[in-house]
């Protein structure tokens, strides 16, 4: 009958519209980069490498929009930043950007070993960020 638990502590914690969506889109694009890099490594079909380049680009675009929305909500004081998570997410975007430059190179050496290595590192950092986020959400003190 009565809601037992709200995901958000108070209404001001509700993110700006689009922030969650763009964050997840960015994460999905960047995670798929690892998949397409792996496919290129296995097949040497350059289409997969081109896919990685586009995924990185769109991952950065989505991530950039999410960052913008996050900064706006920060300015509006809609939330208190969890700095470890912020740091990890920033690292994800920076590494993805560098990875994007790497992927702009031609052929095998733009992916193996550093390109796919950075794609994997990006995924690891995103996992770490997600884990911290989860803990922060569930350990939030009741107000």
């Amino acid at each position: 009958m009565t809601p037992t638990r709200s995901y958000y502590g108070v209404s001001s914690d509700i993110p700006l519209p689009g922030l969650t969506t763009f964050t997840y889109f960015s994460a999905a694009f960047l995670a798929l980069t690892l998949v397409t890099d792996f496919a290129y490594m296995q097949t040497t079909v350059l289409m997969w490498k081109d896919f990685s380049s586009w995924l990185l680009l769109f991952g950065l675009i989505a991530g950039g929009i999410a960052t913008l929305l996050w900064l706006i909500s920060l300015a509006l004081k809609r939330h208190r930043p969890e700095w470890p998570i912020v740091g990890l997410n920033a690292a994800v975007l920076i590494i993805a950007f560098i990875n994007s430059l790497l992927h702009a190179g031609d052929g095998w050496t733009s992916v193996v070993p550093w390109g796919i290595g950075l794609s994997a590192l990006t995924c690891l950092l995103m996992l770490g960020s997600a884990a911290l986020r989860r803990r922060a959400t569930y350990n939030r003190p009741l107000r």
Partner: protein
Amino acid sequence: MMISNSLSARAMLVSSAAVLTLMLASSDAGHAQDSGDFDITRQIGPDPYLPEPQYLNLLPSVKVAEVIGWAEGQTPTVAEGLTITAYATDLVNPRTVHTLPNGDVLVVQSRAPEDKPQYRPKDFIRNWIMAFAAGGGTGPDRDTNLITLLRDTDRDGVVDERHDLLTDLHSPFGVAWIDDTLYVAEADEVISYPYVLGENTITAEPTTLTPLPGGPLNHHWTKDLALSPDGTMLYASVGSNSNAAENGMEAEKGRAAIWEIDRATGASRIYASGLRNPNGLTFNPTSGQLWAVINERDELGPNLVPDYMTSVQDGAFYGWPYSYFGDHVDERVYPPRPDLVAEAIAPDYALSSHVAALGLVFTDGAAMPDAYAAGAFVGQRGSWNRDEFNGYKVSYVPFTNGVPDGMAQDVVTGFLVNDQARGRPVGLGIDGTGALLVSDDAGNTLWRVAAADGSVTEAPVDSDRITAASEAVVEDDAEVEAETETEVETETETETEVESEADEVAPVMPEDETPPAEPAPLPQD
């Protein structure tokens, strides 16, 4: 709980920072390869210095010269003993120049085919940079893709008549003329027109001789053309469809190669391969060998890979994309092909990195000073993919017995002033009076470089030697002997006519073919 969170987060941040530092450090180490104080002459000659390739390029070296054009009265600078004048102005992207047996000069003007597909985010950025380097400025593009005829009737080095011979072509580049037939290499085929010397227009519809690899991508689109000394075969250059096979080897069928085309039937075969972007096809009058200048690959560092000129041997493989200068493997190309690398031969003469060599012409028989009597002029459109400019000039490479012998010397410079490009030299030719022609596709001018002592019209005529060389080659080939003899006679007659027309000055143009060639966009890069 929060403490452990921060710790693990910090650990991840630290490790990612460490990875980044490593990458940047290794990238910096790679950059030690080059930089401003690199002596480019180490990469000129038969045995160039080749630094370690730099595969990790976060930001490839790029330095683009803004095209500002030539102000009234400005010209390039020429070496001592030479003088330079504008032979024709108001051209639209002149690429190649070709002198006909009667001294008429054809200027091929063209622009890259449009609607090139974009496969990667990088393609958009690259095109933007290339457009900047090509100039053009504001306003609508002027019509190009035409062949203009320039006629110097009194042979004084000044053009007296100008006619647009052909218009609305499909990105033409190379031309050749023999037996009242004009061959034009467009972006995807070799076509022919009936054309008698002296005519000012061509109204006939073209005939396709041989299709060549074309679009939709057609990355290196400039197809140059040369006629064999015996007049039976055409040689067409077909550049690669990528920098280093990044569009897949299936995109490279028949490309990065020079085709041999039977003029009578259109039948073709690959004459030589592994030549990334060959242009400037021309036969050496002394040795009778086919020569070309080749634009080598980018993004291995500012000092790799040197562009080069080479005699093109029948059946030879020159490495692209798997290797360069013989067995220097390009690890970007995967899977590797050690079997092909083992076959790859090194070219004859390196011209240093990213100069974008597109024009080549031999000076034998031209009316140039003794210092340039027997060698090759090389037109270098200039770099954009290097942290210091290189090229933007015409050099002279001395030859002995048909082989390069000595260091390249600057002949025409001054295209680049204060890091701004007034023009970019592309195709080369020898005009009907024996002077050097330099097409400038950014300055939209055709420059004429002549001996300063005014001896132009009195220069020795070496067309006999060129003919002799041709005959020697012909004799080697018993099968075509009869046919060739006929053609040689025809050529002789033509030359006689021209001589009588031309006061005391004999034409310097070798037979019908003086095909120079040139350049294009790119990339050339």
